[in-house]
């Protein structure tokens, strides 16, 4: 089957100005998001950031205070959940305990009045897809968590919905099983061509699965983009800290022309371009962009240098990871390949990086508050 063929089965989603208030609490604050047909979109954020509320709104379990929601170009805001034809996979499986696996998967087809023959064929196909065909006569309580979640997935796709919602489906499973099921979900997405909307708080899972990721924070979307965009070009400090590891540096800022520099514990560094709006700047550095050097070797041209002390050195096999405590007390995380001369705890070192590898962002108190 060709890619264009399968893509047609997915529906485009348009969320426009979605707002949900509970009394004084705003769970969703003017959220707008466009999802392409057949896209794998992950809603990523800490708990209480609005990602699950968004999912519940799309599924029809929660009504919007204001805003619009369209699937395949048609507004579904007024439709009750049972008329939306959207598959939902829940974190705790939500399999019907009084029905066998086969009956569970057949349930949506029975509701649609399908005759037994056609129903059985589709059930077998869906169970085959999640590799659970041998378990059709078991009850959910006789299955492991991973098996139950695969059955739940089969039940959500058996009626061929144009959109599948998944609410932290792997949250209750152990790491090994989670990693394997991530690949299974990716495969099923490829085979079905259905639009997937996936909620998680696990950034690694988001990076593995998604075409694009929407990062949620406090009821708003901070940034939408591919994993690479979010990692390399974060637009807010929150996104930078939520996706991957990073070091943030703060200090007294001076701006001259188009260049901002920071003074940190008496050492001056070039931070990058000019920050719009005159907000307090913070320099963000990814661990692999940083390197350590002896204080005796001079910094190369275009490199910044800050002196600190190695406070932790971890050998990782493929390289080493260091924590360096700078003179102003902040801690930098450095990842280096094995060729580098090993440093040990207590060594005084220079932290070096190219000016172009640093990311200058507006400081944001919220970012620290919500990171746990």
């Amino acid at each position: 089957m060709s890619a264009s063929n399968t893509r047609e089965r997915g529906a485009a989603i348009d969320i426009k100005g979605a707002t949900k208030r509970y009394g004084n609490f705003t769970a969703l604050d003017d959220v707008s998001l466009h999802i392409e047909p057949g896209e794998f979109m992950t809603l990523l954020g800490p708990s209480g950031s609005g990602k699950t509320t968004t999912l519940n709104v799309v599924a029809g379990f929660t009504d919007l205070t204001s805003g619009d929601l369209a699937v395949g170009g048609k507004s579904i805001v007024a439709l009750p959940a049972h008329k939306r034809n959207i598959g939902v996979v829940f974190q705790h499986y939500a399999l019907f305990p009084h029905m066998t696996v086969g009956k569970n998967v057949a349930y949506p087809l029975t509701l649609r009045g399908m005759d037994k023959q056609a129903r059985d064929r589709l059930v077998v196909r869906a169970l085959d897809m999640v590799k659970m065909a041998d378990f059709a006569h078991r009850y959910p309580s006789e299955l492991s968590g991973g098996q139950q979640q695969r059955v739940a997935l089969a039940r959500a796709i058996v009626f061929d919905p144009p959109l599948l919602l998944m609410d932290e489906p792997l949250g209750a499973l152990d790491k090994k099983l989670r990693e394997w099921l991530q690949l299974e979900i990716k495969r099923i997405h490829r085979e079905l061509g259905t639009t997937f909307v996936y909620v998680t708080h696990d950034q690694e899972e988001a990076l593995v699965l998604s075409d694009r990721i929407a990062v949620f924070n406090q009821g708003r979307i901070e940034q939408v983009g591919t994993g690479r965009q979010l990692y390399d070009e974060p637009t807010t400090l929150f996104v930078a800290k939520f996706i991957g590891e990073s070091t943030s540096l703060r200090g007294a800022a001076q701006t001259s022309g188009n260049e901002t520099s920071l003074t940190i514990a008496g050492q001056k560094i070039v931070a990058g371009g000019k920050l719009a709006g005159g907000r307090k700047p913070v320099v963000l550095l990814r661990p692999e962009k940083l390197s350590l050097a002896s204080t005796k070797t001079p910094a190369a041209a275009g490199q910044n240098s800050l002196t600190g002390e190695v406070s932790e050195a971890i050998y990782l096999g493929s390289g080493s990871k260091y924590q360096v405590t700078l003179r102003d007390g902040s801690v930098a995380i450095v990842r280096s390949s094995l060729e580098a001369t090993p440093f040990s705890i207590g060594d005084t070192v220079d932290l070096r990086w190219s000016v172009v590898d640093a990311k200058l962002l507006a400081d944001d108190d919220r970012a620290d508050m919500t990171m746990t």
Partner: protein
Amino acid sequence: MSQTSHTPAAGGDHPRPAGAVQGPQRRPRLAAYPSLLAMPALALLIAAMGYPLLTVTLRSFSDPAWGLQNYFWFFSTPVNVTVLWRTFSIAAWVTIVCVIAAYPYAYLMTAVGPRMRLVLILCVLVPFWVSGVVRTLAWVILLQDSGIINSVIRLLGFDGVKLIRTQTGVVIGMAQVLLPFMILPLYSVMRGIDLRLVQAARSLGARPARAFLQIYLPLSLPGVFAGAIIVFILSLGFYITPALLGGPRSTMLSTLVQSQVLSLLNWGRGGAMGVVLLVATFVLLALAAPLMRQRHKQASRS
């Protein structure tokens, strides 16, 4: 060998030499005999249930002479059979009324917040703490021909209804007294039902009514059955409420037993009635058992 041994002198894995002088003798611990925990209850049951039951059964076969004459008498007297049938019929009605009244109430208890839930639980329990006699007397006041219910009905321009000393009155009174025995087991089962199952059914295309009938109701049935059995069995032996609210046409078996034993001092016939009731109840439960057998384990993990 790094193994620790209780007998350092004897050492090794050798069995303890018999009669060897040990440290403080280990007392038999309660944990070793878990069945001991059931002893007080068992003793009470044997003394207060087993022995009298045995006596009653024996007497039903031996008083005034050995034989089945008490049972022949029971089944050859039409009034006894009518009352036996009526006893089961009233118990069934009480059970039905209790299920209908308790189901929405128990559901409400699972749906409201913790403070409201406490209020609802108190509403169930407070009447429970009041003696059954007092509550039944309250029903006498409510149900009598010049009582509140009839006054309201007449005020609305209808004819009064005969409630006191009728079977309807007995069922109303008994249902009220027994309602907590239906609500509490129902609530404990409903509390364990994951409401996301209903959401899941809705997302799969089930209308709210259908999601309730196909998902919620079947999962709540164990609670219905548990409550129904308790209410039904308690109804069979009810004495005070039918005696106070009922008339001659709503006599239940316990009243007949009472008059045989206490008024006529006929222990044999009273005993036979008791045994008939007991056996009939067992037969009924045996018939209902396959209905209640759960094919699945309750999935109330959350």
